[in-house]
């Protein structure tokens, strides 16, 4: 069983936002739908859930055009979070599960179980407005999965989360996929989700510009980067076959041009300072994005 998006087109007020998007989400996989702000990720998810009717194209599930009955087996956490703030946590979850077609008793069991797993069991009788921001986030996630969906779609789930919350969310996602579920999430923070997804779809300008297994995409790329644990002054590398030099707290990352010899570049750096740790690395997600679009993700934002 898999989710397939075929040739989806969507324009708003004459402006093309999605321009023939194809996407496949197989069972047991985590697909990252990545791209700068305004790329059309949210629009695509809304179309997947039938919130928006696309101008053209279709959403398929299990080889057929997806209908309401299929969509009831999916769960959605929209980018714009929203809950009935005056409702109690448990009531809210049960009500949502029943909307998905789960009967009342089962819905209550699912809600109890999920609140337990999310560490919210003792707050289940509280009104949502009385919860902290982080707890409300977890309730939002619970709303998307209380009916035990096969496909879980999370729009920008990591935005605004602290590292502990990211860890927690990742564990939930892994559980879901380990149980044979499908998962799609979106993010505009490419480097943040580097280690989280096995498959990615890079979306830009309304089209999927790069899609596939992240590992394969990386190794297939000609690009490599040299990582060293020192701050590199770009002037040390004048005349070397290198691109940008990015410096962070843990050292520098020097983009190598295709075919460049990493050892030569490393020697050039070592002639200025001692290097104790280094490595040749496949491109990062943002480097892949830049290679595919010719722009940096940060510049591409709408």
């Amino acid at each position, binding site marked *: 069983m898999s989710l397939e998006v075929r040739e989806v087109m969507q324009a708003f007020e004459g402006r093309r936002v999605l321009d023939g998007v194809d996407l496949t989400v197989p069972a047991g996989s985590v697909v990252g739908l990545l791209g700068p702000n305004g790329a059309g990720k949210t629009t695509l998810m*809304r179309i997947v*859930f*039938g*919130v*928006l009717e696309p101008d053209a194209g279709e959403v398929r599930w299990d080889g057929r055009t997806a209908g*309401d*009955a299929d*969509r*009831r087996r999916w769960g*959605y*956490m*929209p980018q*714009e*979070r*929203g*809950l*009935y*703030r*005056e*409702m109690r946590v448990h*009531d809210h979850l049960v*009500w*949502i599960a*029943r*909307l*998905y*077609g789960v009967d009342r008793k089962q819905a209550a069991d699912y809600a109890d179980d999920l609140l337990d797993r999310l560490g919210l069991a003792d707050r289940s009788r509280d009104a949502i407005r009385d919860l902290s921001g982080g707890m409300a986030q977890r309730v939002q996630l619970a*709303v*998307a999965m209380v009916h035990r969906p096969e496909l879980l779609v999370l729009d920008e789930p990591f935005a605004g989360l602290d590292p502990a919350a990211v860890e927690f969310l990742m564990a939930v996602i892994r559980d879901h996929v380990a149980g044979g579920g499908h998962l799609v999430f979106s993010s505009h923070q490419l480097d943040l989700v580097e280690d989280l997804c096995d498959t990615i779809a890079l979306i830009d300008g309304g089209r999927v510009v790069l899609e596939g297994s992240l590992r394969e995409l990386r190794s297939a790329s000609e690009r490599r980067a040299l990582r060293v644990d020192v701050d590199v002054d770009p002037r040390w590398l004048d005349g070397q076959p290198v691109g940008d030099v990015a410096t962070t707290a843990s050292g520098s990352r020097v983009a190598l041009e295709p075919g460049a010899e990493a050892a030569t570049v490393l020697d050039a750096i070592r002639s200025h300072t001692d290097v104790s740790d280094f490595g040749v690395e496949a491109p990062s997600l943002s480097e892949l994005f830049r290679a595919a679009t010719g722009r940096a993700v940060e510049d591409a934002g709408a």
Partner: protein
Amino acid sequence: MTFRSTLLVIERELREAARRKGLWLLAIGMFLGSCAIVFLPDLLADDGPGEATVMVAGDDEVGVAAALGEVDDPVIEVTSGDDRTAVVDAVEQGDADLGVLLSGASSTLIVDDPDTGLVDLVAGVVAETSAADRLDGAGIDPAEVEAAFAAASPAIEPVDVERGDREAAAFIVMLVLYLLTVILTSQIASAVAVEKSNRVSEVLLAIVPPRALLFGKVIGIGCIGVVTLGLVAVPVIVDLARGATLPSGIGVSMLASAIWFVGGLALYLIVAGALGALVSRQEEVGALVVPLTMVLVAAYFATISFGDGPAGAVLSYIPFTSPMSVPYRIGVGAGSPVEYVVSALLLVVAVAVAARLGSVVFRRAVVRTGRRLSLRDVLGR
């Protein structure tokens, strides 16, 4: 699925409503108001007969004082005065409500205000007593004469009282309908706006068809209105069951009100719900609903000022005003059955049209956040 979802939306609406204090206050307030209107007049009227003081002076050979003492409504306290001056003084000072001067065959009433019921009553007693005395003297049995008079006196049938009561009843019924409709109309618009600006609708739209969301809300909030109206009707029904004599208009008027209330509420709630979906922020909802409630206010005031005239008949044919004017016109008996039937049909058609248009507006508007939309934005193209 739409049906099931609609039921669930209704269920949530009612359950959450039951937990809102404001709604309970409204319902209880209306119930108490209704109790007051139905039962208070009874309680006030039942405080027993009034009392009056009458001073009698002169030779009371025929027993006027004794006859006055037998009157039981009002209970008359009879005092005796020495002479004319004493009686006039007493009436002037307010020690007595009325004075009776007797001298032989003639009698005089000393009064403050000649046009009171007490004056008529005492004059009657005095006349009757002295007449009986004279008839007796002439050898005629006063009881026979009394019987003859009683048989000859016409039955009294007031004409205007009923109409006044019916009008008052119709006013009250209308006021209740008006208040409920205005309150619930604003409530649904802001509930929809909150859901949209709160982005709950984003979650829901992935699960629930938009029309289930809209109509679930309309029916849920509509039920609150009907229940409240039911509460208002309870005292009236209890009173009727006790065999009370309600103004005869109120029963029919209430039944008609129920029909037009439900239709009118449906119409207003659907329109307000769809309008609520146009806003992008909750604060904008007031500006959108005000024109709608203005129509209702205008209908209300037009009805109470000329609802029973020909202009009122016109109001009955306009679905947005008929929920106000028809219950009133039925209450005061101003319209014809044909008018009511046509009005009801037009209202039903209007509700059907509003339901279709409203669900289109709602479906298109509720997914478009970011700025306030106009009807042209959603209906155009």
